[in-house]
């Protein structure tokens, strides 16, 4: 049990340990610090658990991805969350001595936490381009993100070799390194990490025994000395390893568990029902880990060597998602034409029940797209896996943490208002001159391109820098041991270990900008029925007193209506953004740098701080949700929305998401129509779909009577949520999305 006092004294001990090893090999420092955290942050096995492994992090510690990992709101890697720390101190009844030493510790971490180190390493140009970190409160266009997100481990290797196999490999490589006078400290630290893993298994095993859960205890003991031999042992090893590694996405699970699953059932070791119970218990643990944006489990698709066995597991995974009604795991189904049709059938049934899962990914488009976007081989592209809100990486081979966000709508705003944020009066962008200097549409577009280019260049440098600082400060032992090339190279994943260190950039407001550019072009320059001067006055006034102009902007062609004009502009804008991001790979050491068009709730957050825009959007309203048309602007039908979406090139970015909302009536009364609709969408080039199914009126009713709607799930963007648990303005944004 971890109590507040434990967190505070753990924080003290952690800091002391860090200080002791501050000049040691980062790998050594890391393992010594990890030994302080574990088992401290581990929570007890619960009576209903079939596996051990629960966690709750404290205000000070080490974890690759801070925010979104339990209670941590600020920081990553070596972090000290001051808000959490304050709360812990307030709720502790400790003596002044303890509290004083904590003040000192807070001061120490202020300049030693990794986030600070990254920010502090910014050159003057970088700091000037990216002045703020808090994009929820500061007006601005581009902001850095601090985290090493999207860890996908080689679970296939883990369950094949087990703990003994890992120790053997480490020993072998250490010997080889010694022969050539290479770095053996890293291997020694890796060995200690595996020994810590063993200790944790035994720690939990003792706990399980005390709770009378002997089966759990046995398995935990067994896996410390032999590789997993059945499904339950494999799941336990995978889970406990993920907890120690801070990995929050769980790979191509049907591949690495499929053989265990089928062999256990076919040999009669366990029944299908028991296997489903196990998977459901596993799912419950993932749900309770509550990572918000992560927790992906990938099933299905091309490139699975044990496809028949994997399919069987995949069906069980879908069944578990119907039983365990939680917002994680984020079950993700990759599919291709010719895949066992039962998977898609069951997937659609599950979606029809309002689970929002599985998310559907079209391999027939995506493998080729990933191959081109990342400039890798087809074989490598076969192993693409989406993580978090929808970014693609190559399973345990490439890294692609999004270390920046850009509000494209705000970039356009900066162009229209000569670099100023109207609300605050602050300069937030390049000052390209007053709007009446723009004589042609190209003038406007060029100024916008300049603004975006400047920031994208800065953001790519920031990504590269963040990796550098990360690599200098930690080895990420658990991650590196199961990430391609790291062990052979004897280097940490970000310290030269990974072959493919790529980056991603989260873009927002794409649709709004495309529609805004269309409106500017059509109204001001083509039809000449509005001057740029009037348009800007109307935007400044948030359309009050400019109702006629507002209607003209609202009625201008919009993306999502299969309209030639709007969609042409959307294509041009999409290509510009994706290509300018992609281009940065050439001026950095990144293996790739790619845009993602995803969503979480940042479209709403950014929307708050974005003024009225020429697409007719009022000040403060949410931006469009990823690759969807902006709310209310799809006037025709879902078929036209899809027609528009498939026009955007998928081979130049690292993932876009399409969030659709269908009525339950449609799904249950017309399943053949729904199948035909989705089939057509995918064969026309649709990359993926995330589908929320609700009864008409349920969302509105749920706002009035929440308790009746606990099981109402919606897809917000990169995560699903219980509708009633969302903040009001996110609820309103979801209601505003068209229901088909």
């Amino acid at each position: 049990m971890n109590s507040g006092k434990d967190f505070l004294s753990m924080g003290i001990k952690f800091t002391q340990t860090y200080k002791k090893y501050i000049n040691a090999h980062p790998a050594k420092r890391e393992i010594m610090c990890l030994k302080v955290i574990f088992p401290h942050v581990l929570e007890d096995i619960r009576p209903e658990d079939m596996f051990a492994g629960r966690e709750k992090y404290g205000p000070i510690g080490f974890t690759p991805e801070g925010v979104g990992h339990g209670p941590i709101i600020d920081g990553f890697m070596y972090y000290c969350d001051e808000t959490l720390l304050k709360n812990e101190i307030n709720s502790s009844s400790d003596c002044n001595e303890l509290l004083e030493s904590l003040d000192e510790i807070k001061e120490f971490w202020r300049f030693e936490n990794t986030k600070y180190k990254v920010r502090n390493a910014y050159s003057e140009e970088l700091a000037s381009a990216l002045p703020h970190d808090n994009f929820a409160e500061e007006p601005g266009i581009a902001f850095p993100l601090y985290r090493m997100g999207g860890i996908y481990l080689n679970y296939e290797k883990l369950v094949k070799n087990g703990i003994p196999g890992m120790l053997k490999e480490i020993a072998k490589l250490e010997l080889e390194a010694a022969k050539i006078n290479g770095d053996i400290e890293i291997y020694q630290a890796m060995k200690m990490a595996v020994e810590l893993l063993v200790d944790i298994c035994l720690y939990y095993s003792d706990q399980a025994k005390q709770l009378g859960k002997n089966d759990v205890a046995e398995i935990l003991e067994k896996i410390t000395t032999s590789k997993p031999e059945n499904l339950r042992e494999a799941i336990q090893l995978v889970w406990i390893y993920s907890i120690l590694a801070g990995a929050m996405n769980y790979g191509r699970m049907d591949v690495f568990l499929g053989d265990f699953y089928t062999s256990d059932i076919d040999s009669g070791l366990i029944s299908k029902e028991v296997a489903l119970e196990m998977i459901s218990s596993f799912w419950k643990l993932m749900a309770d880990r509550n990572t918000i944006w992560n927790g992906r489990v990938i099933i299905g698709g091309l490139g699975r060597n044990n496809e028949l066995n994997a399919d069987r597991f995949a069906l069980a995974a879908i069944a578990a998602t119907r039983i365990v009604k939680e917002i994680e795991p984020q079950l993700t189904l990759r599919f291709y034409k010719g895949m066992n049709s039962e998977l898609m059938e069951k997937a659609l049934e599950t979606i029809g029940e309002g689970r929002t899962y599985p998310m559907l990914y079209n391999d027939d488009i995506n493998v080729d797209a990933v191959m081109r976007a990342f400039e890798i081989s087809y074989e490598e592209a076969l192993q693409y896996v989406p993580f978090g809100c929808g970014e693609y990486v190559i399973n345990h081979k490439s890294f692609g943490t999004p270390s920046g966000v850009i509000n494209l709508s705000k970039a356009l705003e900066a162009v229209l208002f000569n670099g100023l944020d109207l609300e605050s009066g602050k300069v937030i962008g390049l000052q390209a001159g007053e709007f009446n200097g723009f004589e042609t549409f190209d003038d406007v577009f060029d100024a916008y391109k300049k603004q975006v280019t400047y920031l994208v260049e800065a953001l790519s440098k920031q990504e590269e820098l963040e990796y550098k600082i990360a690599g200098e400060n930690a080895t990420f032992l658990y991650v590196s041991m199961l990430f391609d090339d790291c062990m052979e190279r004897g280097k940490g994943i970000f310290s030269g270990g990974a072959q493919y260190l790529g980056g991603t950039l989260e873009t927002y407001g794409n649709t709004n900008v495309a529609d805004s550019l269309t409106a500017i072009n059509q109204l001001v320059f083509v039809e000449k029925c509005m001057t740029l001067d009037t348009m800007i006055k109307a935007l400044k006034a948030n359309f009050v007193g400019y109702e006629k102009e507002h209607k003209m902007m609202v009625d201008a062609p919009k993306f999502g209506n299969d309209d030639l004009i709007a969609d042409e502009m959307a294509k041009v804008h999409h290509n510009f953004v994706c290509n300018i991001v992609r281009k940065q790979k050439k001026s950095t050491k990144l293996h790739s740098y790619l845009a993602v068009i995803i969503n979480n709730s940042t479209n709403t957050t950014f929307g708050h701080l974005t003024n009225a825009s020429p697409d007719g959007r009022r000040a403060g309203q949410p931006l469009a949700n990823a690759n969807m048309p902006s709310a209310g602007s799809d006037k025709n039908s879902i078929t036209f929305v899809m027609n528009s979406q498939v026009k955007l090139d998928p081979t130049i970015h690292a993932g876009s998401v399409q969030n659709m909302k269908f009525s339950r009536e449609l799904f249950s009364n017309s399943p053949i129509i729904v199948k035909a609709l989705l089939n057509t969408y995918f064969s026309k080039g649709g990359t993926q779909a995330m589908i929320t199914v609700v009864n008409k009126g349920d969302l509105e009713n749920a706002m009035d009577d929440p308790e009746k709607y606990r099981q109402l799930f919606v897809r917000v963007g990169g995560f699903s949520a219980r509708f009633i648990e969302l903040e009001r303005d996110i609820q309103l944004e979801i209601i505003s999305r068209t229901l088909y």
Partner: protein
Amino acid sequence: MEGLVFDIQHFSIYDGPGIRTTVFLKGCPLRCIWCHNPESWQKEPQRSLKDPLKLIGRKMTPEEIMVEVEKDNDYYLNSGGGITLSGGEPMLQFEFTLELLKLAKEKGIHTCLETSGYSPKENFEEIYPWVDLFLFDYKATGKERHMKFVGVENELILSNLEYLNVKGAHLILRCPLIPTINDQEEHFKALAALSNQYSGVEGVEILPYHDFGKGKWEEVGLQYALDKITTVDSFIKEKWKQRLIALGCKKLF
């Protein structure tokens, strides 16, 4: 050649099989008292009384319409869908409707025609080869009732139905059912019998009354007569279906 259209609706899944695009033509000779598209009655464009900037009805050529329709070709192919002509009464703009259907067939698109059946026989003679499936209305039984509730006599409609069947057309009978107006046993019996009388009739689709169209009557300056009747719930719909099945009605969609 131009026709007057007041709506084009994509992803129509209740106007014929599969995913369709429904083209709504303006103008109707009937005056059904339950109509939920009263803005379709007048043959000319008209202004909405609710939104002065909104004009109901716009002139389009068959080619212009097909450009819109063809955008969803892939969806039709994958779902057995196509184009549906509706309204109003599409046969009122007969030449235009014929042209549109010919163009659709030329492009390999499945065609549905939603019609009240109230149009000279010669028109049906000319048009039937271009229609894959007729959605043929059957609204009321008996001369007097028909005149009272639909506004025209029923002889022409029934003889056209007979004719189409003789010519080998495929039809589905579409039957609006409104409580207290045409939900009597006599009408059910007649409907069931009619469905079996003609081999060309594939079955029956009942359209339970809903009051979503009420607002549109105000919008075009008409007085709605059915204020007291509310949208039919699924329980009653099910009862009606069971009644028809018991009377031996051919397949209910």
